[in-house]
């Protein structure tokens, strides 16, 4: 074997194994570590996935669970009064919309393939309906949920209080505890 072969021969197996690890790890790092770091630390960030067949959900809609129809429909998002709330809206099929009129958000277009974001401060206590504003699919009429704003509890409202989702296995802290990081 020549020099190239000797070098490649030693590196081939590690290169293959590294590929198998690095490729998914890079995606995981970007989604779980890098992306959350791009948002303000004082914000509660939620990603809402839209599907004309499944409704709105905090579960990531993937090619896998979409066909298994294994996503839980979103019923409620809970935050505390004074929280800065950022909603990341992602369509997994067609055009959708978002409206939360009590907070001055009347219509946000959620285009397929584009991230739409809503950023507001939950400055009033109560339960407020948000919904899809575009006739989008079979379950359009069910594409609604409540934003429940409770009196400030010192940041204790966490994902565990969302009735449609399991609590995180390990309690986390910080602004991401009720949002994006917990969904991953």
């Amino acid at each position: 074997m020549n020099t190239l072969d000797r070098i490649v021969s030693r590196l081939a197996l590690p290169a293959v194994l590294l590929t198998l690890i690095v490729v998914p790890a890079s995606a995981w790092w970007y989604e779980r570590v890098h992306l959350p770091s791009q948002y303000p630390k004082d914000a509660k960030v939620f990603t809402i996935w839209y599907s004309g067949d499944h409704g709105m959900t905090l579960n990531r809609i993937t090619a896998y669970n979409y066909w298994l129809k294994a996503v839980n429909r979103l019923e409620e998002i809970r935050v505390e009064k004074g929280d800065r709330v950022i909603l990341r809206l992602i369509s997994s099929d067609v055009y959708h919309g978002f409206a939360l009129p009590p907070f001055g958000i009347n219509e946000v277009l959620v285009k397929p393939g584009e991230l739409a974001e809503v950023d507001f401060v939950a400055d009033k206590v109560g339960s407020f309906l948000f919904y899809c504003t575009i006739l989008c699919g079979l379950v359009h009429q069910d594409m609604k949920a409540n934003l429940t704003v409770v009196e400030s509890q010192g940041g204790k409202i966490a994902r565990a209080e969302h009735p449609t989702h399991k609590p995180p296995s390990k309690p986390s802290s910080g602004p991401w505890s009720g949002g994006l990081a917990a969904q991953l």
Partner: protein
Amino acid sequence: MSKPVAAPVVESGSEARTVEAPVKGRRFDLFQKFPGLRAFAQTRSFQFLLILPNLAVFYFFIITGIFGNPMGNQNITIIFIWILWWFLLIAFLVPLTSRLWCTMCPLPAAGEWLQRQAIIEHKPGKPLGLDKWWPKQFKNIWLQNFGFLLLALFSVLLVTRPLVTVIVVGGIGVLSTILMLIYKRRAFCVYLCPVSGFQGLYAMFAPIELRSTEKGVCDAHKGKKGCMFGAKPGEEAAYGGYACPWFEYVGTMDRNNYCGLCMECMKTCQKDNISLFLRPFGSDIRIKGYDEAWKAFIMTVLAMVYSITLLGPYGLVKDWANVTWTGEVKGFLIYAASVASACLLIFPGIHLLFSYVSKLFSRAREVPLKKFFVAYSYLLVPFGLLAWIAFSLPLLMVNGSYILQVLSDPFGWGWDLVGTGHFPWTPFYPETVPYLQALILLVGLVFSIRSGYDVARGLFPQREQAIRSLIPMAAYMVALTVGFLVFFTA
């Protein structure tokens, strides 16, 4: 392989000449002109270095296909495999570089590495697994024909649903690995892989070929030939390597169909008598048997079927083909039966009819109809290839802008890696598509009739008789071109 039924016309691989210049007859010796390329092909690392980046990319596509957005246009798996990769494969890799994709294909790599118990090194001895010969009755490309046809029936699902793509691509990877542990060498690639089948057929058209430099050297070489049996480095061969994974003997190989360009023979030839040649387009014109003829029929019909289901305005057919979305099971069965009948019976029947008319025109009673039928099926190789390019072009021109979008957001999760995540869907001069398609089809027609003349001369040494024989086939190709034009411009 099927038994040859038509005499070879252009034996570009068998010209024995002792000239120093790289131009040999109709061939240009690329390895002689570019010795660095030859040296690289002779390294054991050659194939691995081509496979590794594709392994990373396709592995990523498997992940995005499972965990990414379920909608095809928001998932890199669909956009990159069925728009970018497919277009590059059918419009550039196969027509220009023969089966170079097979050289770098990552899907059978794991199986081959396991079989050899090595990634780079040459380890002589018994390979891992059962090391059985592929069953004799399946030593043809019928399984590839049926496999490709089966996939084609579900093509609307395949090219729009990331998970279906993952199942098929991953399935090919898993199946190839299993079969490589049962059968010798790359039996899966030669006899079963659905992508390999049409590549082999259309590689006949490509302007490069791997062949023996001088056939006489192979004939005179007594003893174990490296390309057939493998060779150890040093005394036997300069580099050492395995027997041809594609079961070819380079000394008699005169077509591209079953050469995967892995360059293993470059390492094992004791006589250093193999090289890569540039040649005119469409130099291999010999279809060897019914299996290859039917591959040409199936591919031609499917180019038209895809144009109808994926590009055309025929809503009912689209609904039938898109069965999981519409639930039209009865419609799908009608669609599937129609496509299968067209591929396996109707179109071959039309070809048989024209072959019969060709025989009548030639007035050659002594030449069996079978010979016309098989030999003239080659006309569908350049035409079919160009028809596929014509079909694939609008996929890229109309939907190519999605490439930029998914490059930034491969999972469809709202990422913006390189700032093009919000790039809008922007068709690229879609109004020019029918004109370009017409032009491509006409190029295919010209190549088809031109090579038809060579085929005819292979059947009949007399020019006049050859031309008489070709006239019905040329009319048939013109009618086919018009048919495609109607569907493309509909």
